């Protein structure tokens, strides 16, 4: 059996194990646990697609919240029934044809992804005319613009009131199905000739161009693919929390994503997955610190926001002790895992001698 064939089999096996575990949670887990798992999957989708732009292409893009917003609103507006929309839009009615459009969940997710991609395409020309800090500022700006537009366009987004009462379509199968698919497709892209061209642009744009690589085409490709999956994840997010409003999609969302991929290791998909999983799980686990703590002698009252303080400290610890994040630019491979397990004591001594 060739190594490629073995790795493929192991990957299929790994996915089966993952979904079996999810099935057990579906049967025996609490609502709270299932919610964390859904969150985790959505964050994984977002972090992996965000990493494609920031980690692989090496450009500091600070506007993924715009793509998520576009995806979430598109998908939400498509799954709401006409009656629900009429009931929700109390200040200004929703414009035609959005008021009558209705689509199944899966179509709404795809539409969310496609619209986010279109939006990314529209802003790509101004964005990729600049590099570095300037690009960061331009994308940060577009992220804010979208949020402000959501507040302003009451006839489309219902303004600050947001969209309420969405059907909770997102379940473990949808969220993890999309997450696994995103990981597979983006990993294939990164490991292909296109991914190599992107990494070449990251390492030295002038040299990459001298080897015939067109930077604009490849940055655009990464940007659009990233926007598509972010849009789909936005749709999932909307149908998980069932209420969306502009306050959900502030720069804070981007900042959280940035934290995930930096802690995981910029440029590593494995790192993005780890970072997202840690964030989703850790965010909940750290809720403890916001509760009042009774130490017997002294009582510490609950401090809201304490979680973020601890997160910041953890972030600094990672940056100090592992400057390139948990994974650096390394990726998980079955080869590495097998190597870990087959390291017998005799093998170790032969290396030592």
């Amino acid at each position: 059996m060739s190594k490629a064939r073995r790795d493929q089999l192991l990957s299929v096996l790994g996915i089966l194990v993952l979904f079996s575990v999810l099935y057990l949670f579906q049967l025996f887990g609490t609502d709270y646990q299932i919610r964390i798992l859904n969150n985790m999957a959505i964050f994984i989708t977002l972090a992996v697609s965000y990493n494609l732009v920031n980690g692989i292409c090496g450009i500091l893009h600070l506007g993924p919240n715009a793509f998520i917003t576009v995806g979430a609103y598109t998908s939400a507006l498509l799954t709401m029934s006409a009656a629900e929309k009429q009931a929700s839009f109390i200040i200004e009615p929703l414009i035609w044809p959005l008021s009558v459009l209705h689509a199944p969940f899966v179509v709404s997710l795809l539409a969310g992804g496609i619209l986010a991609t279109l939006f990314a395409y529209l802003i790509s020309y101004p964005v990729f005319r600049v590099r570095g800090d300037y690009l960061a500022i331009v994308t940060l700006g577009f992220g804010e613009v979208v949020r402000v537009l959501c507040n302003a366009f009451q006839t489309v987004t219902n303004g600050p009131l947001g969209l309420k009462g969405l059907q909770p379509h997102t379940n473990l199968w949808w969220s993890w199905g999309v997450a696994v698919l995103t990981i597979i497709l983006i990993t294939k892209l990164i490991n292909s000739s296109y991914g190599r061209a992107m990494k070449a642009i990251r390492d030295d744009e002038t040299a990459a161009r001298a080897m015939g690589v067109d930077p604009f085409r490849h940055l655009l490709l990464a940007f659009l693919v990233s926007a598509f999956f972010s849009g789909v994840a936005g749709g999932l997010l909307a149908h998980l929390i069932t209420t969306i409003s502009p306050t959900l999609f502030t720069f804070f969302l981007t900042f959280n994503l940035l934290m995930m991929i930096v802690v995981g290791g910029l440029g590593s998909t494995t790192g993005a997955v780890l970072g997202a999983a840690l964030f989703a799980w850790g965010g909940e686990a750290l809720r403890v610190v916001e509760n009042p703590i009774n130490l017997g002698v002294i009582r510490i009252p609950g401090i809201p926001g304490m979680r973020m303080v601890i997160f910041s400290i953890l972030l600094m610890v990672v940056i100090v002790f592992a400057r390139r994040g948990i994974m650096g630019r390394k990726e998980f491979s079955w080869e590495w895992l097998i190597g870990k397990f087959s390291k017998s004591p005799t093998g170790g001594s032969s290396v030592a001698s």
Partner: protein
Amino acid sequence: MHGFFETKNLTMQFGGLVAVSSFSLRLEQGELVGLIGPNGAGKTTVFNMITGALAPTAGHVYWQEQEITGLPLNQVAARGIARTFQNIRLFVDMTVLENVMVSFHHKIPTMFWECMLDLPRARRTEEQIKRESMELLQELGLAHLAHEKAGSLPYGQQRRLEIARALATRPRLLLLDEPAAGMNPLETMDLAQLVSDLRARHSLTVLLIEHDMKFVMRLCERIKVLDYGVTIAEGTPAEIQSNSEVIKAYLGDI
């Protein structure tokens, strides 16, 4: 009309400084021409103007009867003019093999979605790129280092990898910017042999910048000398060696 390759009155001005003035050069297919001159003479600027890294202030570049002046770097590379860099610019975080494979990218037939879906054509193309890259590495004596990080190679081998990477774009004109810089005499002579071998095997036309006179005199059929951006001499190695203008430029007035 313009022949295989020609530059006409190429001029580059940076503010008040004229880095290169009226640089004209004609290359016939298969020639090996040297470009020499003291430090700061504008040699690398000429390369930058030819390849599109800099847009010339004035003048024209013709390649295979077409004007390519001011075309972006990547399009010039795609049309068959490749270059190496004086200050080595490898993709340091990628392996030696990957560095070479990048250069094949600009003409792969596969679309990105074929790669994402791992379709048979994408796999075949990838295999073919890998095979051709390994052949090139073999040719340049780097095959045993294929899976090392490019940044971890010793200096001389990084220079060779630069050449391998440029060759992988399948150029017809190769511009070498100080390929022997930092090499010891033995390595330099190896390199001279390599360059003339590669030229024959890949039917290349070569234009090279070099400070090592032994290297230039041994290898080049024709030499052009720049000083302060102005062409001061042109001719065979023997003619250049005895040219008083050239001696003055290098050694000052005697």
